[in-house]
């Protein structure tokens, strides 16, 4: 009915957090350049900033929400005019069903997407630590 609202809300929060973190990371890099810090230090540091990884989660959430919103539009559960959610016009029972679906299906969607992202991040750290293979000479 409106399960995509939950991952949609998470997407807004995550995007805001990623934007703030990116600004912080960029400022930190600027300070390091001004102070003339040695760029070779901390090579064991992950090469991709965490803000970029947060944008991966935002991408997964926004992408899924966009396509699910279309599916809800297709099934007539969402309309492009106020109050936008069909259930809101169908009485208290329908609203209760909608809220129940958001609390069960919607929350599970948000959790599963976040878990998949966490696995992706863990794998990406492992891949970043792996040395690049040299191409075999012909």
């Amino acid at each position, binding site marked *: 009915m409106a399960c995509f609202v939950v991952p949609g809300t998470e997407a807004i929060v995550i995007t805001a957090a990623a934007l703030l973190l990116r600004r912080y990371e960029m400022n930190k890099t600027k300070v390091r350049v001004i102070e003339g810090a040695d760029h070779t230090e901390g090579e064991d540091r992950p090469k991709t900033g965490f803000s970029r990884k947060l944008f991966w989660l935002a991408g997964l959430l*926004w*992408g899924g929400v966009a*396509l699910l919103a279309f599916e809800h539009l297709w099934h007539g559960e969402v309309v492009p005019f106020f109050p936008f959610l069909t259930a809101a016009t169908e009485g208290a029972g329908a609203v209760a069903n909608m809220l129940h679906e958001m609390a069960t299906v919607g929350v599970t969607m948000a959790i599963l997407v976040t878990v998949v992202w966490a696995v992706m991040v863990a794998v990406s750290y492992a891949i970043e630590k792996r040395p690049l293979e040299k191409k075999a000479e012909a």
Partner: protein
Amino acid sequence: MTLLLTVFAAVIVTAVWYKHSDGKMMLGLLCWMFWGASIMWLVDAIFEYAELGAAYFTPEIADMVNDAFLGLSVIALALVIWIVALLIKDPKGTVRAKLKKN
């Protein structure tokens, strides 16, 4: 059917992204959309399975056709979003070059 079509789209786009990973075609955008939607529809499918049981795997033909039509429409929508984003961001500068030429 919608889930199945989206998963196939996600896998194909990810394989193409892996082959051409220079980022100039912005295939990452398509990957996020298809994988995000696939995960969310998987949850939907699990809840539906919990409710319907084995009947979930034997849908009516009309439902299957409608779901397939929806799946194809979703893929078309994602492709439209991607191509519009690609033309606006113009990572290769092709659109800019064309506009300057005319």
